[in-house]
Structures are given as structure tokens and as C-alpha cells.
């Protein structure tokens, strides 16, 4: 295992975050704060509490997940796409590193950034609404698994994308609808039966529901099922990457 190489890639990527502090940290924090002000405080005060949890507190886990998904996919994809775009990837491909080590470096950094931002948002949320965490350990497991899984997913997009439009299409067009329709802002019990059934095909529902359970012990689906779904998605991402590394798809001709 080329530990020096993993460290180099990891810290090189983390340095990018420090350099682009405004864009990588402050902007998601501001965006999420706006959600809290509008949905949590202004509108939320007129919405009745859901299963005994005030609306502002109810949406907090969903908002953290929304940011975590967007950030991890974004960081994971740009981390590998940018060297491909500038051509500097030649150096990593000609270095004595295995693809798994490259993956650990890039995905580790992307997931770390996502986690840091997720925790900052959790701290921000506590200024606006009451937060209680019933199962901190479960919460941490969900947070880390989701961060890793979606950073892997981002990495796949970064390898697949041939231009900036393709790079942005998933985070911009796919993630927000899934998150908004995945019960971030409501319990799916509020939906008509047909849409409840449809919601069960949305992977984000399982993430948000399980994550919310770790806070307030209320859930749309069984938390174990949630955990299983995250594990399933993780396994899918890993198998796709296994295939990519085996064939050299869009990396080595």
C-alpha cells in the first residue's frame, strides 16, 4: 500500500478546500441558514408539529442530508474530473499507485469535506431550532456511510463526464428532486397513497428517514431498512468502480 501517495492526494485535495473556503464552506452554510429562516422559523412557526417534533427541528436532518449529498457528489466528481480536464492526471496514472489508492485519496477527501460541512450545518441549525440527538452513534454511522457512498458516486460521475455540463447534470438535475421528494420537508404519510408508493423507489427517502430516526426516533421506513439501502447503494458504487478500474474506462486506453 502506497501510504505516502494516499496522504499526498488527500492533503492536496483538502488544501483546495482551504483555498476555496468561501465557495466550499461558507456558501452551503449560508444557503442552509436561509432554509432555516424561511422554512424553519417563518413558515415553520405556522405549521403544526409532526409526530411531536416542531417543523423546524423536523426538517434539520433532511437539510443536512441535502447538503451532504450535493457536497459529496460535487467534491467527489470535481476532484477526479479536474485533473482529467487539465491533463495533470498523467502524473497520477504514471505514478506507482494502484487505482484503489487513488480512490481512497480522492474519495476520502471528498467525504471529509462533506462531513465537515454537514457538521457545520448541524451546529448552525442549533442556533435556529431545538435539536436533540437520540442515537448519536447511529447518526454518525449514517453520516459517514452516506458521505462515503455519495463521494464514490461523485467519483464515478467525474470519470464518466466528458465536459462540465455532464459533470453538473447529476448534482443539479437529479439530486434536488430526489431530496425534495424524499421526505426532507415532510413525512411521506402526508402524501396520497399513490405518491407514497412512488416515494419508496427514491433512495434518498431511506437516507433521510434513517438519519431522522437517529435524531427523533420517528421514521417513514424501518431504520434497519434505511441502513440496508445505504449499504446496497455503497455496494453498487463499489462494483461500478471495480469495473471501471478493471477496464480502464475513460482513464487508460
Amino acid at each position, binding site marked *: 500500500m502506497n501510504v505516502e501517495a494516499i496522504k499526498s492526494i488527500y492533503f492536496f485535495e483538502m488544501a483546495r478546500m482551504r483555498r476555496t473556503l468561501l465557495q466550499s464552506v461558507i456558501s452551503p452554510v449560508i444557503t442552509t441558514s436561509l432554509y432555516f429562516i424561511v422554512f424553519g422559523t417563518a413558515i415553520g412557526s405556522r405549521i403544526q408539529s409532526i409526530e411531536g417534533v416542531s417543523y423546524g427541528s423536523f426538517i434539520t436532518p433532511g437539510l443536512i442530508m441535502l447538503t451532504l449529498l450535493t457536497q459529496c457528489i460535487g467534491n467527489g466528481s470535481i476532484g477526479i474530473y479536474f485533473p482529467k480536464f487539465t491533463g495533470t492526471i498523467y502524473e497520477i496514472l*504514471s505514478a506507482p499507485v494502484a487505482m484503489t489508492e487513488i480512490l481512497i485519496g480522492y474519495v476520502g477527501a471528498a467525504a471529509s469535506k462533506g462531513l465537515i460541512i454537514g457538521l457545520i450545518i448541524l451546529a448552525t441549525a442549533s442556533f435556529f431550532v431545538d435539536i436533540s440527538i437520540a442515537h448519536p452513534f447511529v447518526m454518525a454511522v449514517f453520516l459517514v456511510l452516506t458521505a462515503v457512498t455519495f463521494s464514490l458516486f461523485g467519483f464515478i460521475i467525474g470519470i464518466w463526464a466528458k465536459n462540465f455540463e455532464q459533470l453538473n447534470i447529476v448534482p443539479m438535475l437529479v439530486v434536488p428532486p430526489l431530496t425534495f421528494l424524499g421526505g426532507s420537508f415532510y413525512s411521506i404519510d402526508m402524501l396520497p397513497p399513490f405518491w407514497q408508493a412512488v416515494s419508496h423507489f427514491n433512495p434518498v427517502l431511506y437516507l433521510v428517514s434513517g438519519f431522522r430516526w437517529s435524531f427523533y426516533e420517528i421514521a417513514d421506513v424501518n431504520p434497519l431498512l434505511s441502513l440496508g439501502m445505504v449499504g446496497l447503494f455503497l455496494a453498487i458504487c463499489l462494483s461500478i468502480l471495480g469495473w471501471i478500474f478493471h477496464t480502464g474506462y475513460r482513464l487508460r486506453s
Partner: protein
Amino acid sequence: MASVVSIQNLTKTYGNGFEALKGIDLEIEEGEILALLGPNGAGKTTLISIVCGLVNPSGGKVLVGGYDVVRDFRQTRSMIGLVPQELTTDMFETVWNTVSFSRGVHGKKPNPELVESVLKDLSLWAKKDNMLRELSGGMKRRVLIAKALAHEPQILFLDEPTAGVDVNLRREMWQVVERLRENGVTIILTTHYIEEAEEIADRVGVINGGKLLLIEEKTALMKKLGRKQLRLELAEPLKILPDSLSPYNLTLSEDGAALLHEYQGEEGDGSIASLLSMLQAENIHFRDLSTRQSSLEDIFVALVGEQA
């Protein structure tokens, strides 16, 4: 001398069916400077890319220091430094960071003293805190060389190192190459500039159409293939060549004022002496004579022309 890179019957066919390499055999000796010449699209970059691990071979084998480049990639890639043809840089990084990164990604522990000496050798020390996008093209080229040297490679590949570089910088790069050779580094460079191969290489290989047309010591190559031409400026123009001169490979210039004699570098002396005495016998006088040896460039053009 032991060969440090051994390329055996290497072939590469890209996904779109393009046959970039059609069976290359090449032994690169330890400590030499080998220049690979060839027109655009000849397969030079593909060859280098396979040795460095950027492209997978379709067939054949490459050994570096006795290790297989595919199976034992960790050993082979640790030995190799690569300076790519394109000026690809992380625009927003500093010179210091990007060179240190190169060292780390090759699995070497940080060594600020070494990075410092590499930067100083390449006259980059003053720019160490500059972002790469602030540097000129020539400076970026040096940064790429510094990155390739940061992990102390034993073999250095330079893919067209002096493309788009001014004359002074080119001379400086040649000096860098010379210093590296003194330290025992094996250097393989591809180039369009024959002058470059002529100046610094020990051996020259010519690649075209995915095949290695020849590989030869530079001086031997010049001697073997270098045609010489003797030009005699005549005192009085001739209308036709006398029959007695027909055994010699002679041509008369259009105005009849000069005689041109072509001969192979090796067989030189004999034919000229007898030609001159024959001219004297025929009472043909000349007022001046000059000889010209064809350069590597002529050799190259002739070789590539034959192929096409």
C-alpha cells in the same frame, strides 16, 4: 552495458482500430541518452505512454529494470520520471506544492532539501511560491521537469521537451539533461528537432508508422547513411561530360559551371583521389571545391520518405 528498458514486440491498437505500434523491439541501455525521432503520429508518444503506464499495451512486453510494466507497475513506475508533451499544470497551485505533490504521489517521504535543490537546478527557486498560471510557457516546462525529478527517478522520459521553447532555454535544458546523465540517469527523449538529437543523443532511433525503422549510434549513423557531396567550381563551363568521367557518380550543374560528385561517407577517399587525377588528365581545371555532409535531418527525411 546492461539494458534498463527492454521493449519486446510491442503492439498497440486503440479502441477505434488505429494501429499505433506495429511490433517494436528496443533495448535501452543504462545511462545513455536515446533520441526517438519521428513525424507527428509516428507512435512516439504511444510508446512512451505504455512504458510509463498511461496506456495499456495490446501485445508484447516491456521490462523496466527487469520488472514488467503491467504486472510490477509499482517497481517500474518508481524508477521512471515523465515529462509530458503538453504543458499540463494545476493552474492554482504553487510551484513548491505541485513539485512536493509529485514526490509524495510516487510514494517518497517528504524531503524539502531535495525539492529545494531540484528547484534551484532548474532556476525555479525564485518562483517557488508563485502560482503556476502566473508562469511563462518556458517556466511551466521547467516545472514539469522538476515534477518528474522530484522522486529521484533513474530513467527520465522527455516527450518533446523543447517544443515551443526559445533558444536560450533549449540550451539550458540540454545542460540539465547533460547533468542528469552525469548522475547516471538514463534519458529517452522524443523530438522533432533533428538538431536536438544531433546535439545531445548517444543513439538515435527513427520511428514512423508504428515501426522502429532504425536504431543506431549517432556517429555511426551519420557515417553510414550520411551522403557526402563534392562540389567543384570549374574554371571554364563544360557543355557535356567527357565519357572518361562516366564511371564516377557525377552531375553537371545546369549552367555547366560546376561538377557535383555524390558518394557514401564510408567509401570516401579512393574515389575522390582518382576523380581528381582523371580531371587533370582531361585538362579540366577547377577554381574551388567544397564538400558537404548530409545532416541527420537529411537522413531522417530520406528514411521517412522511403516509408511513404
